[in-house]
């Protein structure tokens, strides 16, 4: 593995991304929405207190919230549900970049010239994966930091405790990147089979759906996932990503690209 080769691919991908308005829109707009939405929902509504049994379950999951007022508790509980959106972001953005990148190369038939150079398949694949994952992760981290700052300003410093909880840290900084990896793998696999980036994104986005299960379980039961559970989830997701990467690598074989990709 020659990192200079992979880095050349990364730089080339990023140069193309910044000139692709649709892709830039795809990268910048969702994080902005995902920062604004929880702040708007939480600060503008006049929430009813949580039902006692749900409130008890929430406090049992997050003992540090025990000192919160009923209003703060329901605000904290609402904000907690937006954690999943910070797991969708590092999945969605890499998926969009990977599908645009690969389908775009199929359409322009630019890969053949690349494959005619001494670059190895693993270097090309690594470059494409890094170029897709990093913006997604950085966007989600930047959005998270923005949310922390703005919530402290707009809602109150009491809410800072929600975001600095180890569960958020584990989810955003460990599980998020793992989801990004799986998402890129899905993008690679799906893009090798279709010729329209939108179709590839629609199919690939199925990998993000399990994230929504976190929201459903938390809102239905009041039980909040803990940091060790997010880390465990990250390990499982990363393992799936590594296995998927091997499958993607075979689809990304030189001969396959040249003779079967249409």
């Amino acid at each position, binding site marked *: 593995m020659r990192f*200079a*080769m992979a880095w*050349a691919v990364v*730089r*080339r991908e990023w*140069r*193309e991304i910044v*000139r*692709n308005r649709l892709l830039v829109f795809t990268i910048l707009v969702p994080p902005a929405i995902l920062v604004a939405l929880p702040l708007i929902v939480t600060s503008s509504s006049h929430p009813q207190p949580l039902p006692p049994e749900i409130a008890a379950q929430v406090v049992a999951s997050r003992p540090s919230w025990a000192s919160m007022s009923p209003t703060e508790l329901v605000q904290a509980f609402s904000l907690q549900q937006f954690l999943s959106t910070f797991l969708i972001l590092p999945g969605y953005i890499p998926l969009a970049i990977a599908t645009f990148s690969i389908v775009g190369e199929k359409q*322009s*038939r*630019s*890969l*053949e*010239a*690349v*494959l*005619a*150079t*001494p*670059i*190895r398949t693993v270097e090309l694949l690594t470059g494409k994966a890094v170029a897709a994952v990093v913006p997604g992760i950085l966007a989600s981290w930047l959005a998270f930091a923005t949310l922390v700052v703005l919530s402290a300003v707009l809602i109150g410093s009491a809410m800072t405790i929600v975001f600095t909880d180890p569960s958020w840290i584990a989810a955003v900084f460990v599980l998020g990147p793992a989801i990004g990896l799986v998402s890129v793998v899905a993008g690679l696999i799906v893009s090798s089979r279709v010729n329209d980036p939108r179709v590839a994104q629609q199919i690939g986005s199925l990998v993000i759906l399990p994230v929504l299960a976190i929201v459903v379980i938390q809102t239905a039961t009041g039980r909040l996932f803990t940091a060790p559970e997010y880390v465990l989830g990250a390990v499982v997701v990363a393992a799936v990503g590594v296995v998927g990467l091997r499958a993607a690598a075979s689809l990304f074989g*030189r*001969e396959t690209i*040249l*003779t079967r990709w249409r």
Partner: protein
Amino acid sequence: MPTSGHRPASDEEETMTAAIHDEPARRSGTDRPAVRVGVTAPASSTHTVPAIRAVGLGRRFGDRWAVEDLDLELKPGEVFGLLGPNGAGKTTTVRMLAGLIAPSVGRAAIDGIDVATDPEAVRARIGILTETPGLYDRLTARQNLEFFGQLHGMDRAVRDERIERLLRLFELWDRQDGLAGTFSKGMKQKLAIARALLHEPSVLFLDEPTSGLDPEAAFVVREAIGSLRTSGRTIVLATHNLDEAERLADRIGFLRGRLLRVDSPARLRDASAGHTVEVGLGGPPSTAVLDALRTAGATDIAADGSTVTVTVADARRDTPGLVRALVSAGADVHSVAERTATLESIYFDVMGIVPDANGGR
């Protein structure tokens, strides 16, 4: 490298293996011819090692053989035209020789390096212009070349120098910061050729370089390719454009699944010419004139107005006798010309195609 299943390894293949193993020692010197118009000659290859050698090369896709039994040897600096109709296996051949796809049978080497066992080294020595330019439309001309220079491990200084030289050579220097997507087809094709030359490959593959271009763009690209002829680089020009192959190639190979015939354009024409003579008369030939032609040994006599076309065994030897016979029969001979075979007629002949103006074959 696979050799089984299709044909046994021959003595020739054994020799080739030895050539591959001895390759580093043989390629130590450089004796390339001088370079024209700023294209640097490849730094390696001597005349002792063929630039390209293929023995029994074949590729199968499923049950269908795209190419089989391909034997070929090109000298360094040779321009080889690979002619064939669509689906003849030209692209597959180029891809096998360029180390992009593995042969199903047989073996091939570029500068003595086996394409199957060391494709990475082969790819470092070849440049390829694919059927479509395959440029990154959202990158500038310079950025496109920079990227490929990086993939070939070139230093920045060397890269910058070569990029400038090639962009100037192909008259794209003023558009170096223009997005490739905004270029005309001809400019894109020239940029793609510059990309293929950037690392100064010893072998250049051009796959349908003027396909889909308008006549002006095709002319520009053909001129660009023509300027490379004296660079000492081995060039394989895969095309179905007969005129292009005839103008640019030292030798031409006719491919249709197999390599049917290989020779220089002049020898191909010589071998096919010399049999047809066209005679211009003062008027339509009389029966006596036609009989005189037959007596003089002419066959396949065809009259079209005052022009008579005949077939003879040897045009140069038999033409004086034909003229004497015509004059004796009372004909007014205005002109006599040996009809030269065109590459098109040779192509149809070799491919076994009977052209039909109504679209059939």
